[in-house]
């Protein structure tokens, strides 16, 4: 079976090589920016072949089925090669080993920089990706674009919102907080009324922390090529630490790690009352916390300054084509199909949150009633949030590493009396050290 598929793959690659004399995919030489081109993608689709896609996103199953129906000569193998970090490790290994890399890989925005700077993903600008700049919302598009290169196509986005358990709020007569100060106050009231209930959970989550700093206007990371700046002392970061420190000092957040079994249980039984998280969360709620259907609602994120409408992105992922991919034209064609047009719309109808303007602004999308949220048209809240995402945010080119040491540094603030600001300083130091060791020019 293995040899057969390899042989078919090789045959397909050979065929594509034969007809795409532009030599973008077949040579090991660096494909120039003008390489590829929409025409080659078209002929690759007509010719057919087999591609492997590494992704864990559940709505892609439908996209693969639709795509294979539309292009019967193309065979797409969708492989769940692990989730998040595990997949990146597998991908990194396959790229380093020189064999076994997929043709398309799901990569979260925060991790894309690592693959882009390592020159292990293909610049898709020449394949036609550059022409899609107006199709995607600003946040996700900025996350995949570096100068003129486009290292992936945005698959979904995560403008943040406040998910709250209305049943719990009603029971204790608490108003939905509109500022973070009100949020802290609500946390106090709630925990006093029922010591088993917490406003939210937090044991130190790099993604959540950086997103809230982003919303507060902090821009701790700057990356221009190999020049990197890490600075956790700006005003935005300080606004975040001073507020979050109150929650930690008064034990107002549940010591439960996000995504654990206990977390799902806390969301189900109401002992975790709110989440400030990305707009992709409804899918996780419906599949993971089915028993709390009807209890939860969505509200705009609380503000750092009263009266503003600032927001940030949290999570979200893209489809990238590794340089080691065997059939890049076909891979691009699939990524394009899955992230734009019919593929994107199909994914939205399956519960994914779009990164495309057309889907985000469509009436059907905005007016979709969520039975899970008591019939609320939650997408209106998310779409507003997407419009208000603060600009100029960037992650480190080695954010995967930085996030992996978050719990060794900032995590201390959650289990000891180390102030959050000191934890962030320690994180900054280890990020700077690692970056310098890796050959980046890191400034503080």
């Amino acid at each position, binding site marked *: 079976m293995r040899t057969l598929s390899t042989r078919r793959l090789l045959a397909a690659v050979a065929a594509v090589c034969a007809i795409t004399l532009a030599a973008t995919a077949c040579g090991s030489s660096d494909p120039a920016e003008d390489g590829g081109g929409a025409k080659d993608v078209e002929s690759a689709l007509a010719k057919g072949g087999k591609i492997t896609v590494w992704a*864990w*996103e*559940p709505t892609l199953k439908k996209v693969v089925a639709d795509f294979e129906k539309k292009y019967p000569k193309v065979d797409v193998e969708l*492989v*769940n*090669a*692990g*989730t*998040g970090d*595990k997949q990146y490790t*597998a991908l990194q*290994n*396959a790229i380093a080993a020189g064999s*076994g890399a997929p043709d398309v890989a799901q990569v*979260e925005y925060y991790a894309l920089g690592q693959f882009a700077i390592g020159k292990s993903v293909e610049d898709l600008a020449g394949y036609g990706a550059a022409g899609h700049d107006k199709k995607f919302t600003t946040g996700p598009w900025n996350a995949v674009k570096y100068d003129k290169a486009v290292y992936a196509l945005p698959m*979904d986005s*995560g403008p943040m919102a406040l998910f709250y358990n209305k049943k719990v709020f009603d029971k204790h007569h608490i108003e939905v907080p509109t500022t973070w100060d009100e949020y802290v106050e609500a946390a106090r009231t709630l925990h006093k009324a029922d010591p088993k209930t917490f406003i939210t959970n937090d044991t130190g989550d790099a993604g959540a922390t950086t997103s809230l700093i982003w919303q507060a206007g902090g821009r701790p990371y700057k990356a221009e090529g190999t020049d990197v700046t890490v600075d956790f002392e700006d005003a935005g970061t300080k606004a975040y630490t001073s507020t979050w420190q109150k929650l930690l000092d008064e034990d107002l957040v549940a010591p439960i790690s996000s*995504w*654990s*079994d206990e977390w*799902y*249980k806390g969301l*189900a*039984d109401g002992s975790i009352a709110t989440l400030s998280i*990305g707009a*992709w*969360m409804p*899918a*996780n709620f419906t*599949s*993971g*916390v*089915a*028993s*709390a259907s009807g209890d939860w609602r969505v509200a705009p994120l609380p503000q750092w300054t009263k009266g503003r409408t600032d927001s940030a992105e*949290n*999570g*979200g*992922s893209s489809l990238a084509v590794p340089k080691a991919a065997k059939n890049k034209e076909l891979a691009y064609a699939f990524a394009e199909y899955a992230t734009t047009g019919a593929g994107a719309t199909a994914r939205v109808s399956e519960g*994914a949150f779009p990164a495309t303007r057309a889907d985000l602004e469509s009436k059907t999308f905005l007016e979709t009633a969520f039975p899970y949220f008591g019939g609320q048209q939650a997408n209106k809240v998310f779409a507003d949030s997407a419009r208000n995402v603060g600009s100029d945010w960037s992650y480190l080119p080695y954010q995967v590493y930085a996030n992996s040491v978050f719990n060794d540094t900032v995590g201390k603030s959650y289990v000891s009396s180390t102030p959050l600001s000191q934890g962030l300083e320690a994180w900054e130091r280890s990020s700077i050290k690692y970056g310098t060791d890796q050959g980046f020019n890191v400034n503080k």
Partner: protein
Amino acid sequence: MTTNLAGVDANAADPAPAGPTRTSRGSGRPALRPRRRPHTPLNPRPSIPLTLVTGLVLLYTLLPLAWLVINSTKDQKGLLGSSGLWFGEDFNLWDNISRTLAYDDGVFVRWLLNTLMYVAAGAGGATILAVLGGYALAKYQFPGRRAVFAVVIGAVAVPGTALAVPTFLMFSSMGLTNTPWAVIIPSLISPFGLYLMWVFAAEAVPAELLEAARVDGSGELRTFFRIALPLLMPGTVTVLLFSMVATWNNYFLPLIMIKDPDWYPLTLGLSAWNAQAQTAGGEAVFDLIITGSLLTIVPIVVIFLLLQRYWQSGLAAGSVKE
């Protein structure tokens, strides 16, 4: 989840090694005998504290299993919304099983077949090697026998986990990682099984019997297959059970060797499903993981029930022979 189950299996497997070796040596028999007969002057009536302690241990052993069976009848909603130790409102076991087998294009079935292959090739091969090696070491005199003994005893003491990374590097340089060979070949080596067979063969196959066979003109191979092998059966089954359980539950070796989900064994597959709940957009399928775990332990329980009479009859045979 899987570790709990592994614990149960390991507990169930524990009496096996002690059985054939100890009883065949004749030790411990006086202590065992009277306990079977109640109300003798030596043991007038059951001790209540001991019974209580035993009961607690039994509960501790069976509770995870009961939890697993009960919770595999619930869907995701029931899992998070109802008490863990009693049934929910709906009975979804059959539905859960069919969804587990169908989820992700039936990848669970593929993992099950992979596991069966690893067990058949790895544990089967390990048993054959252990029987051949153990018999040879017990019944033949050759130079270097003591050295082999030292190596085998030393190897028993080295945990497989400690060898995993060196093995990975070795297999990686041979280009065998990410293939089933990377799991099968290391599974073939079972120092403990070899030692067990060695000790067992030394006791179970009388030298006089082999002498008689040789005098009657039977060749060494024929002697082994016709005379020694039937006598070695109880020990062989014990070693087979051990290696099967070890291979079935193996997690760490495939974890570092196999990156292609097509070659995952069940342990890795279930852990991958569990990891799915840990990210944005990933699907939380706790109901399928729990049902999958139940399905994972069923074959190993069946194998135990089917094979137990072989090593039990072995125990009995040993106890009356001497």
